[in-house]
């Protein structure tokens, strides 16, 4: 059901925009939100369904973004300040020729491959190490945070060959199309929409498989899973890599729409933002992350314009409110409402809705 809702949205939105009812700006903004939604889903399969709270999901997003950004940088050609084939920041930092690891990125296929491979490989190495030595719970969370923090510092460095603090900006062409054209904006929106639908559908499928069940079993009792003959390490590495790849893809689509990628994008606080999206929407629900990411981003976008001085307070209170009164997020609230309607015949359904511990009452 939710899938068709999403699909309808992805189809109708561009049509409305073609009819002039939605501005190209809105299309661009929503395109980014769709990427956020995918990013949130990628965290949800880890956190919501496997119990692995990754605070560094932003890293994979950014890595995908950087990988694709490298391609976009090379596509700028000789246009801006220095009129050389090198990206401006390289001229600027005194490079005489393109570093070797940049060269393959002239090829768009390689770039797309890298978008998948780089986050995937990083996740694989990190995941294999961490899960083998049975790092779990908060230890895992904090480690992922340390990882993304270290990466941020690394990318901030000028000499890391990725533009330092300023990162990549001022993209001009994507697959031959002018990135500033409205049609490109629309195309990117549609691409993001398709990514969203595919990921949504794919994850829904995954959850139904036995794999999905093992995943949730790991969340509940990982040791039990091991004693039942499953290598929880393999499962966790697989899901971690998958999630990183999805995040990377989201990042790759995000970057041309946002127009910039820089190390700020992998800062630990960004990782927490994603966690918040998922939690607000409803952790461990299919639709929750999507709705959480979009609603929070909308709220942020709207309130930074409407209440520039107060928006942080508004947003912060929303989080507190959600936690206190919607323990299973927005989606959980819907479920509760549905269950309530169903059970209304059964008389007073108890206070179960707010899991307020008894001793605290």
């Amino acid at each position, binding site marked *: 059901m939710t899938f068709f809702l999403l699909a309808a949205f992805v189809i109708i939105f561009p049509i409305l925009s073609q009819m002039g009812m939605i501005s190209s700006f809105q299309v661009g903004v929503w395109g980014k939100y769709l990427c956020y939604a995918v990013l949130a889903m990628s965290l949800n399969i880890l956190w919501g369904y496997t119990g692995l*709270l990754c605070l560094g999901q932003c890293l994979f997003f950014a890595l995908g973004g950087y990988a694709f950004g490298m391609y976009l940088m090379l596509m700028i050609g000789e246009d801006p300040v220095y009129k050389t084939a090198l990206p401006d920041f390289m001229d600027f930092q005194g490079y005489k020729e393109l570093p070797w690891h940049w060269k393959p990125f002239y090829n768009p296929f390689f770039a797309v491959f890298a978008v998948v491979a780089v986050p995937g490989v990083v996740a694989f190495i*990190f995941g294999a*190490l*961490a899960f*083998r*030595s*049975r*790092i*779990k719970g*908060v*230890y895992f969370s*904090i*480690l992922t*945070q*340390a*990882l993304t*923090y*270290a990466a941020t*510092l*690394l990318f*901030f*460095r000028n000499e890391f060959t990725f533009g330092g603090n300023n990162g990549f900006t001022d993209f001009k062409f994507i697959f031959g199309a002018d990135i500033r054209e409205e049609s490109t904006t629309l195309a990117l929106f549609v691409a993001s929409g398709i990514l969203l639908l595919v990921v949504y559908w794919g994850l829904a499928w995954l959850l139904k498989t036995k794999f999905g069940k093992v995943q949730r079993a790991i969340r*509940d*009792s*990982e*040791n*039990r899973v091991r004693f039942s003959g499953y290598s929880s390490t393999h499962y966790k590495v697989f899901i971690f890599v998958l999630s990183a790849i999805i995040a990377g893809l989201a990042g790759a689509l995000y970057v041309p729409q946002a127009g910039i990628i820089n190390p700020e994008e992998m800062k*630990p*606080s960004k990782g*927490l933002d994603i*966690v*918040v999206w998922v*939690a*607000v929407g409803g*952790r461990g629900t299919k639709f929750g992350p999507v709705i959480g990411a979009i609603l929070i981003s909308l709220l942020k976008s709207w309130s930074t314009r409407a209440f520039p*001085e*107060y928006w*942080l*307070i508004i*947003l*912060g*209170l*929303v*989080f*507190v409110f*959600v*936690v*206190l009164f919607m*323990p299973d997020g927005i989606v959980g609230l819907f479920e509760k409402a549905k269950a309530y309607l169903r059970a209304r015949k059964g008389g007073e359904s108890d206070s179960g809705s*707010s*899991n*307020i*511990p008894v*001793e*605290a009452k």
Partner: protein
Amino acid sequence: MDQRLSKLSTRALLIQVILSTGESQTAAIDVIRERGEPIISEVVEAWRIGRISTLGEGEEVQVLIQVSEGQYEDLLTGSALTPSGEPKINRATRSLRKVLKRIVDLLDLKSPDMSKRIAAAEKLGLSQNEEYLPELRELVPKQSDKKVKAAFQEAVWISELKNGRIDEKISAVTSLGEVKSYPARDFIEALLKESREAKVERLDELEAVAEIALKKIDDHQKLVEVASTLVRGLSTGSVLLLVSYGLAITFGQMGVINMAHGEFIAIGGYTTYVVQNFFVGVFGVESAGFGWYFIAALPAAFVVSALCGAILEKGLIQFLYKRPLESLLATWGVSMVLQQVFRLWFGAANVAVASPEWLSGSYELAGISLSYNRISLIVFALIVVLVTWLLLAKTNWGLHVRATMQNRQMSSCLGVPSSRVNMLTFAFGSGLAGLAGAFLSQIGNVGPSMGQTYIVDSFMVVVVGGVGNLLGAALSSMGIGMLDQGLQPVLGPVMGKITVLFGIILFLQFKPGGLFAARSRSLDD
């Protein structure tokens, strides 16, 4: 020399220096150079930091020294005075100050204050100015204190490196090597280089002794470097410890993923700021009373943060004990709110907190410089660890905290007042964060997002130590601090920090539960 001038009192001369310009100023300075009264350095220092002002115009003009806020002294008479108008601040020019600084340094050579004498000798020696050499030489035997004497002697040698005869140079080099003089190192090296490049007359003997001396100095320096690094590591570790200890309680003991921890640190910082302003209001910046503000700020910071913590616990956290992950979301929200509240209350800019006199400055020990605020930081961290340990390990309250955190329901079943324990514990943890904030105000920023700087580090420390283990947190902060400072000289601060982070990641591969992992046989822990 101007007869008229030399008849004037030093105070009057100073007034002339301050009020006149050009030749008559220079003349006055020349005379002052001959005088040796402490008032000179006092006035020069006051002039430097804008405490000299004038009152009135023309012949009537009076020169005043500001003693403290609104309190002045007539420079000519030295008597206290309440100005009849608005005094106008008078400032020395930069070049004048540099000249006067030299005079003051020379004066300081005879200052009764030992540390001033040492500093002056050091400085004049390093300047390698020929003019000062005779005076320095003359003063060496007059020093009774060994340390002072050594400083003067060293200054003489350093000066001789440039101004001495060749034999004097050689003996100076040798002696400097003996005392392993660090400041001399670069001069000796320059001397060596000069001699090598001057192809006409190479001074073989000088070169030989210079090489030996350099080696001696370098070897010693390596030792000092290691020792200094250790001290710096301790101090960095203490900062980490202070900022993370509150979290070791709220997160480690209670399981609340407290993202607002940083804001509690900020509350401590702001409390210190408010207390400081209060003291300024009551005592004035200059008064002795002001220096005590920090002593008052410590308990204040603790209490204010603890209160805020208690409110947060009662209003929010207590509903989340069964859902620890959600505490992350809620406290993240609280953290956003608090940050913006700080901005609206105190402004978006950081606020200034001045260190009291007794926390400024440093102490030199065998070549290692120990600044007072760092030393007190280390001591304070130690106290925090001790007190926390005593509270948690030796009191019933501590036992209740630990029992409640391990199994809230069961401890209630045994009659432990768990909701009160929860509140007090959270308040205590928050109070510790506030204390950390108070201390951080002495070495860093106080501002709306000051807490954010520390939050990642704090969680890391707690996790590396082993969640729930206070000793672990203490050791891990020291370890991380040492590692950080140890790597910095080699890799620089950025790569050093990155390496530390990767080091932590690797460390947890081997100790997946941190330094002191809580062991359990239960299947789902």
